[in-house]
């Protein structure tokens, strides 16, 4: 299978994001947020380091979330509106390669941004006397996986809906729903009405369960997940992203310009 077209799209997408001032401003803002944690954390008295850790990891994820929603929703829409997509698709590239290339280029750019913020965050933590814990890397990795999933959903929604505003709104809704699925499961179990029970069950099975990606919330729990759980989480993440991208490819293959 010839993947040169895919790599070409990844390449120019990555360049586009790194050179885009919006992206750089967001990464810079992330750095400022982490730096401000030094000031804000003084309110936490002797839990300063904990607060710097939490604000930092949450801040990195929040900035990445804002970026991924804004960038990914407009990823294909902008090229369609400016008609630069005509030149791309008039070349011998499969449409699925274009979609995958745009997605991967975006995610790589985002992950690099998250990594840059994490390096700054770690520097701040070490200055405050934090002792290294491998769980930090696992938490960061889980956060990155979460961003990759929401990014794939944002791309899919951008191809489903007619406007970028509605795609962004639906993506934000899915983000919230994804952190609520545990409660939906409980509500499904407790519900007496079979229709409600079924609907709730379907929603909590279909919606992405983002709570599981928040490893930073439960790394200190008495019982942490077994290794097999992490393997299944990897499968879950890849299958979810794959599903969203395949659906995006399918929609895009039907799109006319």
């Amino acid at each position, binding site marked *: 299978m010839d993947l040169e077209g895919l790599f070409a799209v990844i390449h120019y997408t990555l360049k586009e994001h790194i050179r885009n001032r919006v992206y750089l401003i967001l990464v810079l803002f992330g750095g400022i947020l982490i730096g401000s944690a030094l000031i804000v954390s003084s309110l936490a*008295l002797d*839990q300063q*380091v904990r*607060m710097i850790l939490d604000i930092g990891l949450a801040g990195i994820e929040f900035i990445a979330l804002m970026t991924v929603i804004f960038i990914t929703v407009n990823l294909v829409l902008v090229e369609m509106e400016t008609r630069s997509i005509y030149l791309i698709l008039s070349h011998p590239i499969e449409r699925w390669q274009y979609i995958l290339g745009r997605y991967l280029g975006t995610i790589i750019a985002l992950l690099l941004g998250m990594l840059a913020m994490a390096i700054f965050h770690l520097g701040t933590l070490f200055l405050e006397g934090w002792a290294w814990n491998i769980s930090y890397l696992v938490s960061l990795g889980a956060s990155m996986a979460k961003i990759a999933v929401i990014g794939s959903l944002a791309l899919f929604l951008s191809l489903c809906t007619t406007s970028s505003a509605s795609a962004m709104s639906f993506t934000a809704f899915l983000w919230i729903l994804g952190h609520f699925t545990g409660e939906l499961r409980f509500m499904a179990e407790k519900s007496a009405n079979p229709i409600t029970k079924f609907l709730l069950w379907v929603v909590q099975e279909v919606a992405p369960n983002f709570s599981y990606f928040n490893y930073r919330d439960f790394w*200190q729990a008495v019982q942490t*997940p077994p290794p097999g759980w992490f393997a299944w*989480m990897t499968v*879950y993440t890849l299958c979810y992203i794959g599903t969203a991208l395949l*659906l995006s490819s399918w929609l895009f293959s039907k799109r006319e310009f």
Partner: protein
Amino acid sequence: MAELCRKNKALVASLILFAGVLFSHREINRLYTLPFPPFRELLVKYTGMQDISFIVFGFRDLGADVAWVQLLQYVGGPSVFDEVSKKKFELVEYLTLRTTRIDPYFRQAYIFGASILGWIKVINRPDEALDVLDEGLKYNPKFWPLHMYVAGLGFKKKNEMGKMLEMLANAILDPDCPVTVKGIVARSYEEQKRYPEAIAIWKSILADERVSYYHAKARSEIFKLLRHSRMP
């Protein structure tokens, strides 16, 4: 049908992958349950919207931190050792459990809340302190300082102050022990007229760069205790 599948390969493949999503989701739930109390156990009387918002936006840890800061602001800083009206601390148990229901592994919050409730003279509500510690032990059964504090409270109730102080002296050896709790133990030593032990605790606070905001308090306590220890 075959022709339809061939023309819509991506759609068919996505359905197959989605089956993988469903199956892996089942396995994930089977292997591990998220160790948090359900929403219905959150304490939502005063700050429900804030707490739930943090959780549903995926920032549970940050929500717990904000709740912690609000607990500290409610209690006040070193001024908690001053004589104040009991009414001011009505919500200590509530605010402590509010914080820990968001993050049940925020161990220092249990210790802090229980210490304020159990050992601050003007508050003196050991039953509430025990409620807090019991909940802490439910989620952190292997966290030994909590056991120490429970034992310490038990000795306090029986008025066995020597044994109580022994327990607390061990409990505050935890490197993450809140400085307020150390201050409480130092005060307890002071009440038993065991000034050298009390001074030792305040000196350890003075040596800890992480709690520089407590250093002025520590210095004044040390001077006071030195004066007391010189008096006949």
